[in-house]
């Protein structure tokens, strides 16, 4: 009787390897399947672990039970020597169909188990997912944070470009950045000392260009409201321009950016025919300059301010000569330092004396 039972039992005797995943659960796996993983194979041969439940092999942290199941399915198929190459390929293609999150987990787990064929398979699948997608699509698929500033996205372009117009633009950016930094320092220093004029450039210009009567009116209590509104507006537009810029600058360190710049430059050059050597307005200049909240929107604000400067400069140069003289000197010494109020109510916006002429009495 006993013999008969043994005879029946014998063919069923397989050896198993015991594996423990990071969450503590222990699984029993056929030996030939588990040994297909180099890491497990090594553990068994070097330390002799895995032969029983108490001595289960601890798998790396990146392998959770669900993923382990997938990996073992892969091993179970591929460790059979009888399959043809075609069969293996078909299996692989079906096997790899899963959502992106699982695919990434699987890649990571296969790597920690040193299962190179599976790592190659999953890497190829991930490459196929990435290929041809726009950056936004890739970020969405893999949950990547969009944490590069506009400036950083542009940086490779800045390093390599040899177009003089873009170099000029970069210089203007650099200068503006410096000025804003200095302003910030001064702001911090003189924080309580002088009431700041936080009017927009627009206001100031309209004031300069002869809206004399409005001076006292514009310099406002409307300020704070305006600023807040503009800040929100700024944030909206900056994200819009960010995505616009993304599309423009997509194949990043390459000639295309130059090409788009060239187009923009040519377009604007025709507009401001006298301003042929000025950088064109490629970014939308609809955005109003925000003076007060520089820290939040540094880069888009800087850009928009620059557009503003450029456009205004052009506009002003196209107007009459005497005015132009004043405006020219105005433009050069444009330091937006805190403004001191005179008792007579006129504003000394700039240190340049000529302005006081305009503000008049």
């Amino acid at each position, binding site marked *: 009787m006993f013999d008969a039972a043994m005879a029946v039992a014998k063919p069923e005797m397989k050896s198993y390897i015991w594996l423990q995943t990071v969450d503590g659960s222990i699984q029993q796996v056929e030996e030939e399947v588990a040994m297909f993983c180099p890491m497990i194979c090594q553990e068994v041969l070097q330390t002799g672990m895995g032969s029983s439940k108490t001595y289960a092999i601890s798998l790396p942290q990146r392998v959770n039970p669900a993923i382990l199941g997938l990996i073992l399915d892969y091993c179970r198929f591929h460790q059979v020597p009888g399959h043809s190459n075609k069969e293996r390929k078909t299996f692989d293609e079906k096997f790899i169909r899963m959502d992106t*999150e699982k695919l990434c987990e699987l890649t990571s787990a296969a790597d920690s188990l040193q299962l190179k064929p599976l*790592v190659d398979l999953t890497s190829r699948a991930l490459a196929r997912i990435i*290929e041809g997608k726009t*950056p936004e699509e890739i*970020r969405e698929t893999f949950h990547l*944070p969009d944490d590069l500033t506009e400036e950083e996205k542009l940086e490779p372009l800045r390093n390599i470009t040899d177009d003089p117009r873009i170099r000029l633009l970069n210089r203007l950016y650099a200068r503006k950045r410096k000025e804003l930094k200095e302003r910030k320092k001064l702001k911090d220093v003189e924080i309580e000392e002088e009431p700041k004029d936080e009017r927009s450039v627009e206001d100031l210009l309209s004031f300069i260009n002869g809206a004399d009567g409005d001076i006292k009116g514009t310099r406002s209590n409307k300020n704070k409201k305006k600023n807040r509104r503009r800040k929100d507006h700024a944030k909206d537009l900056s994200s819009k321009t960010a995505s616009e810029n993304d599309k423009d600058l997509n194949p990043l*360190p*390459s000639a295309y950016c130059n090409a788009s710049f060239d187009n923009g430059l040519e377009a604007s050059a025709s507009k401001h025919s006298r301003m042929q050597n000025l950088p064109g307005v490629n970014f939308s200049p609809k955005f109003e300059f925000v003076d007060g909240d520089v820290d939040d929107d540094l880069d888009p604000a800087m850009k928009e301010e620059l557009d503003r400067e450029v456009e205004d400069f052009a506009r002003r140069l196209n107007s009459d000569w005497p005015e132009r003289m004043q405006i020219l000197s105005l433009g050069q010494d444009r330091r937006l330092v805190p403004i001191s109020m005179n008792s007579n109510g006129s504003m000394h916006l700039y240190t340049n004396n000529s302005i006081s002429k305009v503000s008049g009495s």
Partner: protein
Amino acid sequence: MSEVMGPDLISDLPQSIIESILVLLPIRDAVRTSILSSKWRYKWASITQLVFDDKCVPFSNDRVVVEKSMVKFITRVLFLHQGPIHKFQITNSKLQSCPEIDQWILFLSRNGIKELVMELGEGEFFRIPSSLFNCRKLTRLELSRCELDPPHSFKGFACLRSLSLHQVLISPDAVESIISRCPLLESLSLSYFDNLALTICAPNLKGLYLEGEFKDICLEDTPLLVEISIAMYMTEDIAEHFEQSSNCNFLKFLGGVPNLEKLVGLIYFTKYLSIGIDSVHLPIMYNNLETIELYQVNFEDAKEILVILHLITSSPNLKELQISGSSNTPVAVDIPDLDFWEKECLSDSILNKLKIVKLSEMGGWPHEIEFIKYLLARSPMLETLSIIPCVFDVENNLKMLIELVKCRRASTKAEVIFIHE
């Protein structure tokens, strides 16, 4: 935007995996990953394989425009790259000789380049700068449409395993010296050479692929050669040379390759081997030779047939035989010397392992029929014999078939398949 996003799935994978993913992407897509997020900014910059093909810049019909943007792109990528570059490949038909390539090769020579593939466009051949010869770690070199001139002090590439020169302007001495100075060379491929007489000394060579107008090929020291594929073109010069030659080419070429496993000969190769064959007693057996493919064999030339017979009888383990006749219609209509076959029939060689025979471009000439008879009578393990006639001439084919049916077969399993359109 990032309100309901889950955790970052991919950025924390090991760098080796990210690199292998990036290498699988076209170079443009790989570089674009730099604006994905702060972690991804420089991940692409350390990939060790850079492959530039026709698709890495936008298409334009103007070659100069494409060339300019290619040059800009490649220069920028190299400039932004960090770390060693193991593989650098340019296969772009619009890129021709331009000065920037010199700088790229210099840059690569300083960054541990191992595999260099340059396939430039038609037009002016690019002259490879001397900095290439300083690439000490080079294991694979593939050049197309270039000019190569090694300096006198060149000591060879100590690590080079694979060399492929296609339409390269280089002096024959230079070729021989490069080959002999690369001790680890395993694979050699030379194509589109003019009037080259070549002596090859490459003790580690395993694969040899030649195509061009070769006057003479001597395999002096290639004991480990396993696979040979030769296509020899003919010019008047070479034809004359053949006529005047008193060498035994068979010995010169195949005398020192006992480990040969596969032999492929095209165009005039069989003719080349046939020179001097009369006087030969074959010294060696090719015990590993399992596949023989000979194309454009002239079945009117008894010497060429002799070449085939010699090869077959020296290869006891031959499994697959493919012979393609030359499609020249015979000039002479006189009766061929069929005594030749009687002589051969006296030898008792049996082709014990021959399983598959494919004969194409068969014109039904007497020698061809005799050859088929010969094969059928001596191949006890033959499984398929397929015959493709070269002309669709019903009468001719009928004659062939009638002859074939008469043939005695040593193999009971043999299927004779006459493929006729």
